[in-house]
């Protein structure tokens, strides 16, 4: 079966599963199944079918699994958001539409991701500006300064900055990887490359530190630093960068824990939430209780205890950062582990695209995007399950939030472009290769 037909089959499957989940929630909520509930389900499936048609025309040889996984995750997210607060689901649906629009726009405007390499400094600068703008203009929500209010919307620029930084680093590191791999001098027996190539590491470190101190957000800082360290390592295969990166981040984290009260609270709650059960530890403990309550099989969609009598969620921020707690409660261990495996499947496809890509930039771009996606998922799921300190970042495709879903749909667009180019070069039809050459 061709890649696109495979994608279609999986999309239809994902659509069917998500429609069932949605109808289950709807029935639990309104005690009936009517045509409205089915129409919403069909609109959702329609959006992804349109994306599929676009991919069929413009990216014919792209990976067939990424889009169906995205659809399934988005469906699970929308269903849970609808479950928690129906009015938000409608907003999130509109954001999904905007995200789909940006996906189309990205594919139409960029067409070939190799073009991005030419604009890497501009893209990198845009990423940096987005972050600096957040620090300067941002408003503080839940102790972290991650949001900019503009035109009646709340935008989380770091979600987009993440993409820009990955594109920039992929280009920069691919260019400089040889220079970075060759030590020019030794400090305390540790081989170091020339300072001017080592510089970006320090800039990234300073930026992460600035994010920690000014945005008071441990999660995004950790994510950016990890992306950077992973890309440095993948570009140079030199473990010294990993050691240096981890060491520098640990130092920055230690500083943050001691001087930023918000980060300090999060850290002490992570170590021992019980003494803070009614205060700073309330949210995390309620999250753990909600997750534990799901048991192996879960309460079922729309049937878990997630809302108080006054319709407030049992865990504050349940529809955003803590949506995984809601999923665990209603889908049980089997469902929650399934969702994690779904993320792992997505990540695996991302790395697979990287491994097969024919050039360094494509490899680093795909691997960087996959790393960013994987770590963001790990940081938030690990946070709400107390595996690591809790930090407020979104669960890709699932959490409520416009910036998150649009930025991550753009991430999918980039991955599919890399994949399409790779597969055409490695065995597409003559026609496809010729079209590719014309674009390049």
């Amino acid at each position, binding site marked *: 079966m061709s890649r696109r037909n495979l994608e279609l089959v999986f999309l239809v499957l994902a659509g069917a599963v998500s429609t069932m989940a949605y109808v289950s929630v709807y029935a639990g909520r309104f005690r009936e199944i009517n045509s409205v509930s089915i129409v919403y389900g069909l609109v959702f499936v329609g959006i992804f079918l349109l994306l599929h048609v676009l991919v069929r025309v413009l990216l014919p040889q792209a990976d067939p699994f990424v889009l169906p996984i995205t659809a399934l995750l988005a469906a699970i997210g929308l269903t849970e958001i609808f479950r928690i607060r129906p009015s938000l689901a409608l907003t999130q649906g509109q954001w999904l539409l905007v995200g789909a629009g940006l996906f189309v726009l990205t594919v139409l405007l960029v067409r070939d991701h190799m073009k991005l390499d030419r604009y890497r400094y501009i893209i990198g600068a845009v990423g940096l500006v987005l972050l600096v703008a957040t620090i300067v203009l941002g408003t503080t929500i839940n102790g972290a300064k991650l949001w900019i209010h503009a035109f009646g919307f709340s935008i989380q620029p770091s979600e987009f900055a993440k993409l820009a930084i990955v594109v920039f680093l992929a280009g920069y590191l691919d260019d400089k990887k040889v220079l970075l791999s060759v030590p020019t001098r030794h400090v305390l027996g540790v081989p170091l490359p020339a300072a001017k190539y080592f510089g970006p590491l320090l800039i990234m470190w300073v930026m992460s530190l600035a994010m920690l101190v000014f945005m008071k957000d441990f999660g995004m800082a950790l994510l950016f630093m990890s992306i950077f360290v*992973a890309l440095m*390592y993948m570009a140079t295969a030199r473990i010294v960068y990993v050691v240096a990166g981890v060491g520098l981040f640990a130092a920055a984290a230690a500083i943050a824990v001691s001087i930023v009260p918000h980060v300090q609270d999060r850290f002490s709650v992570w170590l021992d939430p019980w003494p803070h059960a009614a205060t700073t530890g309330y949210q995390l403990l309620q999250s*753990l209780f*909600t997750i*534990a309550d799901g048991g192996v099989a879960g309460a079922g969609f729309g049937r878990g*205890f997630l809302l108080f*009598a006054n319709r407030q969620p049992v865990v504050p921020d349940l529809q955003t950062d803590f949506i995984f707690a809601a999923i665990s409660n209603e889908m049980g261990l089997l469902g929650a582990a399934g969702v994690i495996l779904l*993320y792992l499947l997505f*990540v695996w496809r991302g790395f697979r695209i990287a491994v097969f890509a024919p050039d360094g930039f494509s490899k680093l771009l795909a691997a960087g995007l996959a790393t960013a996606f994987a770590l963001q998922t790990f940081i938030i799921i*690990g946070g709400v399950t107390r595996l690591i300190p809790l930090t407020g970042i979104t669960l890709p495709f699932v959490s409520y939030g416009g910036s998150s879903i649009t930025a991550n749909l753009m991430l999918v667009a980039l991955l599919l472009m890399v994949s399409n180019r790779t597969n055409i070069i490695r065995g597409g039809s003559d026609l496809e290769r010729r079209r590719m050459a014309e674009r390049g």
Partner: protein
Amino acid sequence: MNRAISKVFIITAVLFIALIVNLTWIMAVRAEWFRDRPENKRSIAEEMKIKRGDIIGFDGSVIVGTERRSGYYHRDYPQGTVAPQLIGYDSVRYGRSGIEAQLNDDLTGQSTDLGVQSWVDRLLGRKPKGAAVKLTLVPAVQKTAQSVLHGQKGAVVVLSPKTGALIASASAPTYDPANLEDRWARLSVDASAPLLNRPTQGLYVPGSAFKVVTAAAGLDTGKVTPDTEFVDTGTYVVFGGKVTNYGGAVYGPNDFTTALTYSINTTFGKVGNELGRKRLIAGMEGFGFYQTPPLPLPEGEVLPSGRYGKKGLLAPGAFMDPLDVAWAAVGQERLLATPLQMALVVGGVANGGRIMKPYYLQEIVSASGDVVGATEPEQWLVAMKPQTASELNTMMQRVVNAGTGTAAALEGIQVAGKTGTAEKGDGSDLAWFVAFAPADDPEVAVVVVIEDSGSTGGEVAAPLAAEVIKSALAQPALP
């Protein structure tokens, strides 16, 4: 480059597997543990969908009922504030305490005594119905006890000496359970501790009220009789220190009955050393000191009485020198007692030396109206011989008729009692009155303790005790 990329993928895969392992730990292995944590209020919120059983007074009136709002049942309190610290609260946000926590399984209909839900009920999603619990608390007496404490800090306990039933248990300052959730932020940090159930959790220096215990030990071991003669010079010098009387009084020659009547410290200090450390402590243990009184309440809501050190209750065998023994015999030194413990002491004297197990649960009535459980009165301890109890009873009547406790005397009712004033040296005295009545056939044992009284137990606490006794003996029925 591909090798490094593969390695990074392997690392992310390991991280994801760690997530799944951790999730399995939380959701499968430790799920039960999380469910049972006291901080976990999820089950409370779910149980709010069950109609919780009423809590009923001994007179049959509803003290705590339920009201349905938007699908959830909430507690309501038709009689206002009635023993909120003992009955406890039932809050989604702050959990449960007191009787609400202790009898939760009965109140929510989940107790096995109430019959497990049939599978048909489960299939149809029928919720279990809670059973009502009838308490031994008599609302009229309880309200008198609360009103005598109004505006002060302290506690009142009323027990039935013959059965051990708790007739009233008041703690002041108090709070209105109906708006606990709104006031929690202030109540929980209030320095005067309105949430504390003083009768069972308040540890006070017993002062001269403790002389009942010393007297019982002295008489029971034959070391003294009510007529044993002593001479008071105002000070009793012992082991390099001295024991003095309240207010510096000097009484001259006195017998043991007179010593109790006027609360002469020097005589009791001497009796203490006559007994010695071991017999004094054994006497205390006979009254239940050094163990948690068996009133069924959640962990930590009933505290044991005895000698306390910096790290809490000392062992009964802890060292005391003769000066310590002398001061302990007059109820000072390191002694701390709860009002409940002191009520058990006077209850023991009233009941011929036998202390009944304290209880508050009269019966459990299932939603279908069947009585599914009841408390049978049970003896707990034997504190002294009947002869000793009878002698002490007579001596305690003298306290009310001619001694420090005359303010507790009542027309037509013979009250037996003992005053206590624990000086803290800064004018913030602690006033006690421990009593039972009628002396010849005791129906009630009453303890009143007032913090920061500014005066003696005889002046402050005794009249309040009299009021409570009058109210209790006027009731048509007592448990």
